[in-house]
């Protein structure tokens, strides 16, 4: 069953290949010694070490298909499943023949990467990976920055998560293989943000004190997620905030305008005890200290 995908891909190749014979790894390494030399370090070597698997499920031909025709023709890319020339969709199908049933890849068919034509081999180098894990073609952040230039710019800002410092990586928060609908915002975006702890926003994996539950939750956090106020990759403002001062950040929601908020009559506006002409009132979190959620005060004052 698992290798039906590879067999199916072979249908795209010349008819002779579909009926070709499996020749075994020993034949392959005769012409590809550079690949074979370090293949024992490759996670795919496990299929060879297992020993008892049928030829279509092990070694070189487990991925590249039967090599009989390839050998008879003394090489060539048209008579074998050569990943450097096949279409992204075909690469995906070939890899998913084995890897589809892992939970982190269960949404790959609908992921933004798949829709943009990003194939497995765009990020993974199966035979020559310099990375110690996951067969990545480069260091993970370099791979992502290659397409996501503005994200790269965000991580160069003074306020940022420490990705460039090597402390964390993109996959701490994102699933590049596609994530399930996030349980915050309206279930549509962000599309590649992974959930943490089963069904929480990925920020809460590290920022444990923000998880709660609290008696008084700040609905902004639970309803639309942390990115209502924060720019998670990086910000020119302190604390990854979207605005340089907290007053405007808060007031843009807390304006009392009808139809918004929990009761549909507006997100509560500030009380007359505030005087915004006085600078001391512009930093809301000086008094509303537990803004992510409080147990002791409905207005997050303690």
């Amino acid at each position, binding site marked *: 069953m698992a290798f039906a995908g590879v067999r*199916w891909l072979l*249908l795209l190749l010349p008819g002779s290949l579909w009926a070709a014979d499996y020749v075994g790894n020993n034949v392959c390494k005769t012409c590809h010694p550079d690949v074979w030399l370090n293949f*024992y*370090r490759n996670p795919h070597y496990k299929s060879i*070490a297992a020993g008892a698997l049928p030829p279509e499920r092990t070694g070189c031909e487990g991925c590249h298909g039967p090599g009989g025709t390839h050998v008879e023709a003394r090489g060539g890319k048209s008579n074998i499943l050569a990943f450097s020339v096949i279409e992204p969709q075909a690469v995906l199908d070939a890899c998913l023949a084995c890897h*589809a*049933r892992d939970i982190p890849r269960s949404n790959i068919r*609908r992921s933004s990467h798949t829709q*943009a034509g990003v194939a497995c081999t765009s990020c993974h180098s199966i*035979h*020559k990976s310099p990375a110690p894990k996951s067969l990545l*073609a480069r*260091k993970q952040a370099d791979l992502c920055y*290659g397409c996501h230039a503005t994200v*790269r710019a965000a991580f160069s*800002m*003074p306020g940022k998560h420490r990705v460039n*410092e090597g*402390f964390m990586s993109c996959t701490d928060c994102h699933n590049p293989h596609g994530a*399930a609908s996030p349980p915050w915002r309206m*279930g*549509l975006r962000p599309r590649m943000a992974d*959930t943490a*702890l*089963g*069904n929480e926003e990925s920020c809460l994996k590290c920022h*444990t*004190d923000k998880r709660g*539950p*609290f*008696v008084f*939750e700040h*609905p902004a956090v*639970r309803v639309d997620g942390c990115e*209502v106020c924060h720019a998670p990759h990086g910000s*020119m403002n*302190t604390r990854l905030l979207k605005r*340089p001062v907290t*007053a*405007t950040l808060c*007031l*843009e*929601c807390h*304006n009392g*305008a009808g139809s*918004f908020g929990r*009761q549909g009559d507006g997100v509560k506006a*500030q009380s*007359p005890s505030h*005087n*915004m*002409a006085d600078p001391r009132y*512009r*930093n809301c*979190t*000086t008094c509303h*200290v537990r803004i992510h959620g409080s*147990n002791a005060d*409905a207005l997050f004052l*303690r």
Partner: protein
Amino acid sequence: MTAVAIELLAAGGLLLAQQTVAPSTEPVARPRGEDRNGYNVQHSFETGYRFRGVGGNVPQYQSDVNFSSGARLLSSSLAVHSKEGQGRLFDQISLETQGLGNDPYQAASVRLEKNRFYRYDMVWRLQDYVNPAFAISGGAHAFATVRRSQDHDFTLFPQSGFRLFAGLSRNRQAGPALNTVQLFDSRGDEFPPAGNVRRAQNDYRLGLEVRLLGMKFTALRTWEKFTEEWPLELGPSTGFNRDDESTLGSFRRAEPYEGSTPGWRFHLFGERGRWFAANARFAYSAGRRNFRFEEAAVGTDRFGRGRNRQIVAAGNGRRPVSSGAVSLNLFPSPRLTVVNHSALHHVRMEGDNSYAEINNATAGLALLQFRFLGLRSIVNTSDANYRPLKWLGLYSGYHYSTRRIRSREQLGAGPSAELIAAGQDNRIHAGLAGIRMQPADRLSIHVDAEVGRASRPFFPISERDYHTLGVRAQYKTKTVLMAASTRAANNTNSVSLSAHGARSRVYAVDASWTASTRFAIDSAYSKTHLDTLSGIAYFAAGRQIATDQSLYVSNVHAGHLGARVGLGKRADLYAGYSRVEDAGDGRNALAVPPPGRRPGSALPLFRIAQTFPLAYESPLARFSLLVRAKLRWNIGYQFYRYREDFLPSQNYRAHTGFTSVVWSF
């Protein structure tokens, strides 16, 4: 792929991101390792000394960079692989470390594996973080904490149809922290009590996976424990505001907080032949936290009268969360994929709080407060991916989401307590479309667009009527990568008496060229424009202003240039420069823009803050010399400069550098 090409790729990879100057990235050689008793062993470590000198605002430097002087094990790696995959106790050991010693960002990862029998993964991290907070708030809410986290995952029979999982994650945060408290009434002064914060989270996991009848079923049981303590104390203080007469004699607060979140996760995957696949997942967690809060404060209020306040509060918060999703994948032909995804998310947040306050102004106050917030969202998305020609791909999608938000709130105690209940529904419809083209062998072009319409969004700044349009073109060979992209996004969310509009434009270009193993260059530039205009309402000098606007303008220019040059056969030089600048709205000084020139607030204090010009740059250079076949010496320097136009007291310049040796075998 030849060895030379691999070297080229590796060299190119070294160039892409502006990293910190150390640890170094130049390889010692291509070590083949040593063969011993059926295993191949590769080992390398880099050890050296970091130095730094900071001028200007040191806490701001610590918040942004935080490298300090001292000896370090900058990086190390150990890889042991069984040559035949038949090792006795293990087939693979992989160990990577970074920054051990005293770097602010330390990490280690371990993988230990025996084919078919077990696999163990561990990641350990430490971050030393300083948060100096806003200068404009008098340094309130400062943190200098160390966070340590570790994740352990063990899998038994990793390659079989029956697998068992066990895992443990630990997260600790501890260190001194400064908070603020406002006393003794709603217009009283703010005081800065301090104390050590201690937070601890343990997450335990146990599960199994079974493959049966073409289906794969996974079940995972989780338990999370969390505790927090943050006792605060402060002696006599006059508070932040000099014109406020409030004074504090003593302040003490204790608020221990603990709880657990048990949960379940299930996953099911099935595939039928070559035309159909389905998977489903369900997760449930039932969080509960118990707390107690005690506070005592003595001082004088803003009128100079003696005051004391004692608060005792206790209660608990509860939050059961259920989420489930089902994906159906259809492959009618090799060129067409259709995916339908449905998801349900349900949260009930509730909690009660018995609150007692005794002070000599109110002569006592007792409350029982209860709040409930329920969210239920349903999502259905359909996406189709079609490739009619080898060089042309099309996709489209329709995404629908509906959400119901319910709320109940009780303030007060007894039969006369007010109970407020409300509910509302949101819906959003979004359409997506995209085209992938490959007009030439190495050239790809991708165009995508999304249009969305929402009814009754929850917040005034939420997406309501929005659209995005993006284009990306890329030319890529083994040695050259050139890319250009642009993206535009607009959102309008307007109701009567309030209007919000957000507009962003992004332009980016990238180019890298790895000419040979001796020379490579990489460059990138992006511009991000963002402007938002939002309706705000507030009180100023006793007068309500309900029709003001908040304008925010940001123009971020980010550039990076890096080059790696081989000097002879033994030496390498890497030089890079990174700069990010927010040009704001064009101002370069703290000044109030004249009203009427552009939209924005009527209040001068808000007009000042509608933009925030800032420049942050960091050039670096690293020289690396191959002393012997397996020994390399490195020296490097990196400069950081942070410059705000509005608050120059936050500015700093930092000189950092290192020298190290890398040894591998």
